[in-house]
């Protein structure tokens, strides 16, 4: 019997589940990969849900209002639709009322990003019912809450921490808006500008990735159809810019009228008895139904009508009538508690106001003005800037819708004019006012602006005479005996070297190292500027960052150094100084040290 030759030894095969487990383990521990994966998953999931939401709403509306249908449908359908959604909202989904933007912000700033699955489902069902029945609200705001909710639910199910969930909510919101409006860049900006209130939010990468993923899903499913079909417009004359200023004024005033009416009505609706809550949306439905019976174009979000106006189909009296009726219909629908947003109606109102201004201008100055369609286009952005108060988002959004660069300058002029007027006449932005009516105190733009204005330079104090790096620890103990500062700057011949903490100096003196130099002490404690952990701030950094750094390093004194030369000491910033800059009375004020020889 021959013995078979030995075969090459095979490595033992690990079970599939074990390898999968390792893969999962590897993934969950690698931060970058996980962030990438979550952005992609949230983007794709939210994109798919948003497309389903839009298609369902559209199909429902098409069946509710067949071509050539009887006029009575226009009264009955929105009334019943609002009644059904009203009952659902009160009985099952109380958190799904309204647009979804203030609710998303509340989730981020108050509830650690928590949005329940029930709310997501409720928002989807109630909004599809209400919008499909012709309620004069938009689908974009609800999409934002649905997207944010999906991100919240998914990240919680993945076992992420509260802080992580909180940061992923805007990622979902951005993905939803990118799909709902077909504007991925504007969606990113909106998430940062309005939802987060910080254009420099560090989640930018994830927000962009999810937005693009969602947008790709939209394109794969529905093709490359823009939301609006716009002719190529151009600036006919430089004088036309003045007309765009007028449009900004009109848009601003229209925005203020809309916001004030909506808030006023909502305040009065909220004063009605609680047991009428389920029937209140029906008042909005009936109102829009009665208006829609006479002027059907007011029903629903009205993008078809906007498309026509953008195409130049403008009859002056009619567009003025539509703008007025839409303001009333949307304000009543929203205030009465229907589920739906105000993005779409803002665009509608702006397009009609713009078309009206453009028509008048074209009649009065035919030689120097473009067609009314161009003004309708700019008007959309103008109303958006006036109502939503996100001027940058509105400019980019219209640019993305038109893909036409020439419209940018008039758009910016008009938007900023409307934004300024709106800001002057309606101090509180709509989403902040809505949240306040609900008893929520979210971070306001004014607060953010105040916080943004506070820099390290606003709390800087003059640095005391630095100790010499060659000074012995024993001498330093004597020098620092009377100071209230916890740390002191040290310099050598080349300039600032680092900070020595008083307790380190005392500890070294007591441990028999009194003859060592301060240079040795700084190097031993990692405080020298050549070390990785050299702790410092710059004058132009936010004050909050200095505060955070004090917390991380457990130091109450930080050196402020030049950005051009870190060996140039500009001053010190102390914890009491920071608190004073924030307006907090400090019990432990540190007296300013006298400069040696000064």
């Amino acid at each position: 019997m021959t013995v078979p030759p030995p075969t090459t030894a095979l490595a033992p095969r690990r079970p599939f589940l074990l390898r999968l487990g390792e893969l999962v383990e590897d993934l969950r521990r690698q931060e970058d990969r996980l962030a990438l994966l979550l952005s992609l998953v949230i983007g794709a999931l939210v994109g798919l849900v948003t497309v389903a939401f839009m298609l369902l709403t559209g199909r429902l509306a098409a069946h509710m209002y067949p071509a050539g249908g009887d006029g009575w449908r226009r009264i009955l359908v929105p009334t019943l639709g609002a009644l059904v959604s009203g009952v659902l909202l009160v009985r099952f989904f109380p958190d799904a009322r309204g647009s979804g933007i203030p609710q998303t912000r509340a989730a981020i700033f108050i509830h650690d990003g928590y949005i329940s699955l029930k709310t997501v489902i409720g928002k989807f069902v109630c909004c599809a019912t209400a919008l499909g029945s012709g309620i004069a609200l938009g689908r974009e705001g609800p999409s934002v809450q649905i997207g944010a909710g999906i991100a919240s639910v998914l990240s919680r199910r993945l076992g992420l921490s509260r802080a992580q969930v909180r940061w992923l909510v805007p990622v979902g919101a951005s993905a939803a808006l990118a799909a709902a409006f077909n504007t991925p860049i504007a969606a990113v900006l909106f998430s940062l500008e309005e939802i987060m209130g910080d254009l420099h939010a560090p989640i930018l990468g994830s927000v962009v990735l999810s937005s693009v993923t969602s947008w790709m899903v939209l394109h794969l499913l529905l093709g490359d159809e823009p939301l609006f079909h716009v002719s190529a417009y151009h600036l006919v004359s430089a004088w036309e810019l003045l007309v765009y200023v007028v449009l900004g004024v009109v848009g601003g005033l229209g925005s203020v009228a809309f916001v004030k009416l909506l808030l006023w009505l909502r305040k009065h609706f909220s004063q009605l008895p609680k047991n009428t809550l389920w029937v209140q949306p029906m008042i909005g439905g009936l109102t829009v139904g009665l208006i829609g019976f006479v002027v059907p174009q007011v029903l629903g979000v009205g993008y078809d009508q906007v498309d026509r106006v953008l195409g130049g189909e403008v009859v002056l009296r009619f567009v003025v009538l539509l703008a007025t009726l839409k303001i009333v219909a949307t304000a009543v629908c929203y205030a009465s508690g229907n589920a739906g947003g105000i993005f779409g109606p803002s665009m509608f109102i702006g397009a009609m106001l713009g078309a009206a201004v453009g028509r008048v201008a074209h009649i009065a100055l035919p030689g120097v003005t473009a067609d009314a369609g161009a003004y309708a286009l700019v008007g959309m952005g103008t109303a958006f800037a006036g109502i939503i108060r996100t001027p940058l988002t509105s400019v980019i959004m219209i640019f993305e819708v038109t893909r036409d660069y020439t419209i940018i300058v008039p758009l910016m002029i008009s938007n900023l004019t409307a934004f300024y007027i709106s800001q002057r006449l309606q101090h509180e932005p709509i989403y902040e006012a809505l949240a306040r009516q609900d008893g929520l105190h979210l971070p306001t733009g004014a607060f953010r602006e105040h916080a943004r204005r506070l820099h390290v330079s606003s709390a800087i104090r003059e640095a005391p005479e630095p100790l010499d790096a060659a000074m012995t620890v024993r001498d330093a103990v004597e020098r620092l005996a009377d100071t209230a500062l916890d740390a002191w700057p040290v310099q050598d011949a080349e300039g600032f070297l680092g900070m020595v903490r008083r307790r380190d100096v005392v500890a070294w003196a007591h441990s028999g190292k009194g003859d060592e130099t301060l240079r040795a002490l700084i190097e031993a404690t990692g405080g020298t500027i050549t070390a990785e952990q050299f702790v410092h701030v710059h004058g132009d950094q936010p004050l909050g960052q200095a505060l955070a750094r004090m917390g991380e390093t457990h130091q109450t004194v930080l050196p402020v150094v030049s950005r051009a030369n870190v060996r140039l000491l500009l001053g010190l910033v102390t914890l009491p100084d920071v608190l004073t800059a924030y307006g907090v009375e400090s019990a432990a004020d540190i007296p300013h040290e006298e400069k040696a020889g000064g």
Partner: protein
Amino acid sequence: MAEHLDAAHRVAPMAVPTMAVPPSTSNVRFGTTLLVAGVVMAVLLAADLALARMDVRESRVAAAALYDQGRVLLVQGKAREAGDRFATALSMERGNLSYARALAQAELQDGRAEEAGRTLQDLLNRAETDGAANLLMARVLVRERRPADAKSYFHRAIYGKWGADSVSRSVQARLELIDLLATRHEESELLAELLPLEAMPNDSLAPRRRLAHLFIDAGAPDRASEIFRALLRDDPRDADAYAGMGEAALALGNFHTARADYAEAARLRPENARIVARAAVADTVYAISPSVRGIGAAVRDARSRALLDAVSRRIDGCAGTWTSAFADSAHATLARVAPKDAVGSADAQASLAGELWNARPSTCRDAFNDDALTIVLRHMGQ
């Protein structure tokens, strides 16, 4: 220094939580959630695809119904209502070029040339070689009094894509261009458009007759004559063909032949007032033209003198609008060929009459209506 700054930035982490999953979460939970998310996405994708397909199908059916309604309304002359139907149909099915064309046609028919122009521009951005769209755009531009731009679109229409029945529709586009050129008296361009039509086989009478008349307008009466002659070979009693022959002969300066052809036409259709009137003009031309053969030197001289007198009278008649430089020049010339200096110089007088006629300013054109004198003078001036 750079490393110091880098170090400083590393020390300042953003206030973002780490994305690593907390250790408290089990791998099973993590993996299962991702798996469930994948399944949900697959289900949603299937649902979305089904919904999108249904949406497209239903939208197409509804759009087609609206399009049909619009066609009926357009035939009934209700262009505004038809336009509404087409616009809605187009909003339901953006890629449908027929809906866009129909909308533009309705807008044009409704007098909304500017809107039609925009609709067509969008359409042409997507299908720049679409023959029908280019033809409609040309019509819009004609309506907007922009003939130069219109001609360009007519050419695109002629050489564009037409689908079924492309030859006749292309010819139709060319005929519309020819009408525009004839109206604007652009003879050389007109002739260039007529020549391809002449080369095309055509058995029906009306287009051939029209083509022949257009050749006269284009300054090619000999080609017109050939066509009319061919028509007469087919039907020797075709009065219109005789009249056409007469008109071509007038343009060629064959006044004797013209008179004979018109006489024959008038004989064949004495009830046709236009033919009878043109026959009278041909008679007059024959009677006053100094270039008619066989009339003798004295008669030729007398006719030349009469012609020059007639031109000078017309000139005097519109002197008020004549530019002063031209008037002075003309009167000086007339003085040089006064009877005492130029007796018997019939050719010189006739030639001068022709030159004066050719040099007449636009402000004096009304003085020379299209009558026998004009025909004779045009011939003199050639």
